[in-house]
């Protein structure tokens, strides 16, 4: 599947590392695998493993170790709010809770229409612009800083209506 769909992208990724070090390509390949559905399917794990000569279980443990890979489906848009100490000192915990309340979910849950998951995450290196979140979609991660619940809800409404990557 990946091989048929993204042959050039796979070649480009493999070329980033020395030819005898294909294993290094596993992380960018997992991002590629996640591009389809926002999470890494079992089939994709097997395919990535095959591309670089690993066991599928080894690839699976990498997916489990790194928080930006997902092994099960979530919302189309994952809103990852930083609630770590510096942001929490500037009201990020209340922001995350208010946002969830407005969406009718609890932290970590996905809205009924399947569009949005809200998660709490650790420091995103934007502590001076709290509250902030990153928006993870199937093919990328973008920052949204100096947020209010209002601005976040407007963004969500826009995404639900028009799609796009935020």
């Amino acid at each position, binding site marked *: 599947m990946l091989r048929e769909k993204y042959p050039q992208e796979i070649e480009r990724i493999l070329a980033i590392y020395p030819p005898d070090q294909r294993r290094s390509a596993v992380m960018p390949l997992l991002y590629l695998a996640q591009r389809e559905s926002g999470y890494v399917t079992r089939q994709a794990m097997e395919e990535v493993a095959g591309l670089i000569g690993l066991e599928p279980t080894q690839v699976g443990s990498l997916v489990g170790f790194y928080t930006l890979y997902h092994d099960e489906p979530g919302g189309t848009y994952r809103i990852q709010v930083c609630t770590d*100490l510096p942001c929490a000192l500037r009201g990020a915990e209340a922001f995350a809770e208010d946002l969830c309340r407005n969406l009718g979910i609890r932290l970590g849950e996905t809205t009924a229409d399947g569009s949005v998951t809200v998660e709490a995450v650790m420091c995103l290196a934007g502590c001076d612009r709290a509250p902030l979140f990153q928006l993870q979609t199937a093919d990328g991660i973008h920052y949204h800083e100096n947020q209010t619940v209002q601005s976040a809800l407007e963004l969500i409404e826009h995404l639900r209506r028009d799609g796009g990557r935020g």
Partner: protein
Amino acid sequence: MAERLLLRHRDLPGLGELPGYQAHEGFEGLRKAVMTMTPAQVIDLVKASGLRGRGGAGFPTGVKWSFLSPGVFPRYVVANADESEPGTFKDRELMEHNPFQFLEGVAICAYAAQANLAYVYCRGEFWDLAHRLEENLAEMGRAGFLGARLLGTDYDLDIRVHLGAGAYICGEETALLESLEGRLGQPRLRPPFPAAKGLYGKPTVVNNVETLANLPLILTRGAEWYRGFGTEKSPGTKIFSLSGHVARPGNYELPLGTPFRELIFTYGGGTSSGLKVKAIMPAGASSSILPGTDEVLDTPMDYESVAAAGSALGSASVIVMDESVDLGWVLKKTSEFFNHESCGKCTPCREGTYWMLHAIERLEHNRRSVGDVALLRSVAAGMQGKCLCALGEFSVVPVVTGIDRFQADFRPDGRDEP
């Protein structure tokens, strides 16, 4: 405001573009290095400048480079752009707004290390930034600052970007190398150090983004000039990431040795609430917590002085907390962080971070009974000196110093204390 050497983009609009960068000494340092100096001379110059690593430990950069195993090739350089310490957001600003100064620094380091391939390991969250860096690198290649026989010399260099995927431990240099090799980001036993066996088992230099961004101007303007900033033992300027209860949070580039008071009050505008400063964490979540006394506020922020005051400068991510904060809650936040980020490789840290968090929750539940505070302290103390990497130690220091230095917050029913 002192002269800025790193956040120069704030004074020089256009510095983020290649022509603008070239108009302000851009690539003159690299040119000087590869056209007029041997790698050993570059290392000597950086040693003479006294530049110390900005990733946390403050180890002298030139000295670290001189540890590379002689005669073993290929060698690699890896820029540590994992920036994940809570409270740290300086490398991101550098790479977003002054990317060529950073990348020129990578190239100078690679030349000094005689490496022909360098990686920039960006934390996965820096997705957009990593893609812009790739464009910046392509531009450098077209302009002849990278690639085969760069600048007409016989030196070849390629720099490539690698994106992590969310794991604080990958900022630790050996975990970072494991991750770059496509494995779980778990630290290696040391020795051997990366200078002997690093990436793919070859001699490797790992340096922080800010460290590397210092190199171009050290090359063009010289070691003596650089030593005109900062203190005798901590030369140069440093980017302080100021966060928490301050009116104007942000990055401030100041000479090393600037007192906390100046950063927090002159630049940061004091606390936003007007309340007194209760506690300061100078090195992000990994800090020994300092009380906001006059003595601490007057401490110069350099490696030696902050250590003498009972903490560490680390990555200089200064988290300020006013009198409204409860230290029990602070320790819960830091313990949640380390419990989440422990890589699980060694038992004292994997179990210890879990039990510390557990003990803090229990302490909250029991309204801070004397026994629970003692239990938490003993769990923390039991981890000290037993962990495989510094993360375990980092998780302990806020807990121990928080309990010992802010005793009023840990009396039974401490929440009800004025």
